[in-house]
């Protein structure tokens, strides 16, 4: 006698079960198929090509009406299952009961909707079924759409709509796209390709609220206050196994419906397959394991032996022009080694992860031709010891070349600006080289490139080498570190001319040989990026030395020193009381007056930092940045307020300068002083920038130091008014910020570019001075704030231990 099989859900997994079952034993079961969607099985993973217009719905239908009819399957589409009685073995649908001998759950998954305020507005959809796809296909060039979620599904949705000319913005909470399948480098390249397709991408973006008008979505509000207007909002943030019915039915359910290796649930007559199941703690979203499960379900139903085993998976993104591949495990755990290959000119990145002479993971972007070969090595656990050195070049390796250090320059577009001072682009330089300029001097003479501040000299030489080949002998320059062949100057220039706006962009486009730099190059790159792109690039604390990350100076015993700011060296009894109270409360062993006219609390425990800052903040005290490669102090004398020799209000000017400059990052520390007369009590002439007041105005001199080198400043200019003095100081600071090599004090930068160049930029060219001031102000709109307040409020957790296992041991 035929057994009765009821299947709930006509998806890809249960569809595959029906195929296996009806092929192997057409008469074994009397089958009833419920589906809440009013249609049968279609290839859900091909919805993206339908959205982009490369396929139609008809193309992706797997099972049409006649397919079900031929196999005698009773279809109850568009009908929900209300209840299941496992004692009576009856399924109750909206239109009546069906009895079963075996029951199969294929309820799939439901898209996760973030419960943001406004998530129930009209025009907020998921990306899951044909209805959603049709909604998105209804958008055109006049529409704006926001997609929340930078995973596989979200990006396919975004690319599909962008193909129709829709203005699409993807909002992603993580630091790079598809973080589950890709590492940062491949995520960066993917972002770049998608941006080339006109898709806007916002990373590290937290959605706060969905704004509506007349019950319809109007915009997405981010927690930084940005409003992204949209006509449609697509949430593609993940799926959850659909387990509600199974739970009501009393089956064992965790994240998904629990199944054993035979795909049987906690009830021997009930099986489950697909995205709704949980097997050995895992749930499934990709199609390959679902098909494996389907085979096992069919075998189990027919009484054959079979067991489902989880396998390594690979991923490809179905977006035309984005060639990426990821397989296996490319993160996690110790004992693993990386092999990294980058070709900036072709936009290629490959990373292999090796453990115990086996390949266990691979991420590739730009050139994925060897993907299946690597995937084979991963699945078969092949020993790669013998071919390790050449593995990354793939199966066709014949003895390939090492990465070309010149390729970053070779890959620059002709219009890329090489010399910023004289506005000379790559094609200008290449032209004169081809026209006979055979060395640096000739290029300088004909184009002016590298003839001013000289920081682009390295790049001009590389262009000579790229253009002339072996006819040009490169002078040897010191690269930043072992991660690159490029010098600081080369990198600074390339960051501007390419342009490069993230660390990943630098690693990839300039062919870094390490995964994410080292302690030498990463702080430099972080500084260059934040100095050149204050709005686009976000400062990365993890690329800073401990003092700048913790906003305090580490001492030899691992404690810290805390120096609150005293504007221009002026304080008052309330501040002094707060400092004294803090010293008492936190058992500060040493309190010392510094050379920069403020008070240092030495020996504060790392864990106490947020608390002591919060206490000092309450008295109005902020960070003195005594730890930073940035503005330290502006030292002053008392000036006309009290001194009988004072010519100007030096204290007042010092306070003004400090309030303008504080918080700014510079290549190295920056110390200022303002003296009220040439007796120079504030010692202004051994500071990075010194102002000496005279009767007729303000003498500004730069390039002093009193450290390992002792230097007297050189006069930059004299100006008649305080406002002008402030402007010149801001402009020269910005010129140093923009051109200085990381860890060069101002005097070293001055030696390289020359005083004449600085005078031309800051004193003579007034338009340029104004532009420098404007760029400084723009950067300060981000950085002129108290990091102590921010850390005490938002990051206090990071200063405490992750856990304390000594307490438990004592109990």
């Amino acid at each position, binding site marked *: 006698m035929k057994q009765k099989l009821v299947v709930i859900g006509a998806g890809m997994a249960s569809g595959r079960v029906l195929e296996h079952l009806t092929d192997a034993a057409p008469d074994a079961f009397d089958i009833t198929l419920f589906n809440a969607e009013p249609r049968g099985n279609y290839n859900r993973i091909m919805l993206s090509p339908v959205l982009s217009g490369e396929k139609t719905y008809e193309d992706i239908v797997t099972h049409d009406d006649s397919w079900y009819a031929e196999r005698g399957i009773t279809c109850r589409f568009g009908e929900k299952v209300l209840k299941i009685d496992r004692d009576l073995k009856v399924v109750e649908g909206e239109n009546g009961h069906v009895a079963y001998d075996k029951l199969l759950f294929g309820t799939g998954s439901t898209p996760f909707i973030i419960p943001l305020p406004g998530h129930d507005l009209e025009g907020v959809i998921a990306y899951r079924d044909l209805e959603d796809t049709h909604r998105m296909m209804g958008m055109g060039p006049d529409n704006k759409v926001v997609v929340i979620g930078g995973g596989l599904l979200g990006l396919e949705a975004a690319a599909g709509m962008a193909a129709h000319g829709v203005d699409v913005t993807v909002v992603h909470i993580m630091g790079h796209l598809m973080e589950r399948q890709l590492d940062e480098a491949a995520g960066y390249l993917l972002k770049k390709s998608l941006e080339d397709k006109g898709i806007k991408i916002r990373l590290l973006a937290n959605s706060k609220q969905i704004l509506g008008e007349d019950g319809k979505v109007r915009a997405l509000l981010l927690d930084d206050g940005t409003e992204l207007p949209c006509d449609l909002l697509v949430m593609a943030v993940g799926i959850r196994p659909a387990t509600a019915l199974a739970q009501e039915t009393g089956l064992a359910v965790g994240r998904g419906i629990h199944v054993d290796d035979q795909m049987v649930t906690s009830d021997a007559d009930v099986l489950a397959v697909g995205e709704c199941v949980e097997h050995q*703690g895992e749930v499934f979203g990709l199609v390959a394991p679902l098909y494996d499960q389907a085979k096992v379900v069919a075998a189990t139903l027919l009484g054959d032996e079979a067991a489902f085993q989880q396998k390594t998976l690979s991923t490809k993104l179905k977006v035309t022009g984005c060639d990426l591949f990821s397989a296996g495990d490319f993160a996690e755990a110790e004992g693993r080694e990386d092999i990294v290959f980058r070709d900036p000119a072709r936009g290629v990145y490959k990373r292999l992860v090796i453990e115990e002479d086996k390949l266990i993971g691979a991420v590739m972007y730009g050139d994925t031709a060897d993907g299946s070969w690597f995937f084979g090595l991963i699945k078969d656990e092949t020993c790669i010891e013998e071919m390790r050195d050449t593995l990354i070049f793939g199966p066709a390796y014949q003895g390939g070349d090492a990465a070309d250090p010149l390729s970053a320059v070779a890959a620059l577009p002709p219009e890329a600006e090489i010399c910023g001072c004289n506005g000379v682009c790559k094609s200008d330089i290449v032209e004169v080289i081809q026209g006979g300029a055979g060395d640096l001097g000739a290029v300088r003479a004909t184009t002016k490139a590298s003839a001013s501040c000289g920081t682009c000299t390295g790049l001009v030489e590389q262009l000579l080498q790229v253009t002339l080949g072996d006819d040009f002998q490169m002078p040897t320059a010191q690269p930043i570190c072992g991660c690159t062949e490029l010098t600081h100057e080369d990198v600074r220039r390339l960051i501007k001319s390419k342009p490069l706006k993230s660390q990943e962009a630098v690693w990839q486009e300039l062919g870094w040989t390490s995964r994410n730099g080292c302690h030498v190059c990463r*702080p430099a790159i972080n500084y260059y990026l934040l100095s050149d792109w204050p709005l686009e690039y976000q400062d990365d604390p993890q690329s800073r*030395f401990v003092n700048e990350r913790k906003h305090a100076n580490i001492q030899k015993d*691992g404690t810290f020193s805390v120096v609150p700011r005293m504007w221009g060296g002026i304080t008052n009894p309330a501040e002094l009381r707060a400092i004294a109270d803090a010293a008492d409360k936190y058992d500060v062993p040493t309190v010392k007056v510094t050379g920069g006219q403020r008070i240092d609390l030495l020996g504060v425990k790392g864990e106490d930092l947020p608390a002591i800052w919060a206490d000092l903040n309450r008295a109005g005290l902020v960070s003195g940045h005594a730890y930073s490669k940035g503005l330290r102090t502006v030292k002053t004398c008392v000036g006309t307020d009290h001194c009988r020799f004072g010519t100007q209000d030096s204290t007042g000017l010092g306070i003004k300068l400090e309030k303008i400059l504080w918080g700014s990052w510079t290549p190295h520390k920056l110390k200022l002083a303002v003296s009220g007369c040439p007796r120079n009590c504030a010692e202004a002439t051994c500071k990075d920038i010194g102002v000496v007041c005279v009767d007729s105005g303000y003498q500004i001199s730069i390039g002093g130091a009193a450290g390992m080198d002792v230097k007297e400043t050189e006069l930059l200019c004299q100006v008649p008014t305080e406002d002008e003095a402030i402007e010149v100081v801001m402009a020269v600071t910005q010129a140093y910020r923009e051109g200085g090599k990381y860890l060069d004090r101002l005097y070293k930068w001055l030696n390289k570019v020359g005083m004449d160049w600085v005078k031309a930029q800051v004193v003579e060219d007034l338009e340029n001075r104004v532009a420098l001031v404007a760029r400084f102000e723009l950067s300060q709109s981000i950085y002129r704030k108290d990091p102590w307040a921010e850390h005490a409020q938002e990051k206090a957790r990071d200063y405490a*231990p992750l856990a304390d296992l000594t307490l438990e041991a004592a109990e």
Partner: protein
Amino acid sequence: MNWIDIGHIEEVPLRGARVLKTPVGCIAVFRTGEAEIFAASNSCPHKQGPLSEGIVHGQSVTCPLHNWVFDLNTGEAQGSDDGRIDVYPVRLEHGRILIDGDAIGQRSAA
């Protein structure tokens, strides 16, 4: 092994570290990638610099005091420096960081 849950991976900054206090002293828990965790002694053998405050790059950390670099896989100092830090077995399970309790002198909770 006796795995002890010490926190969620998101509690450790990417390319950063947090300190774990244990009966065998302070251990630094490093996060070198989105889902890549190491644990090693927090103390540099040179001048006892707190390694959890160092710059984390690749699968290495640089001591904040005098720039000794340690491979977090082996604990060996790199380059010309000679020294080693203890490393401890850790693993990730659904985002939770687990450390081997036996290796840090912690008896089982049971």
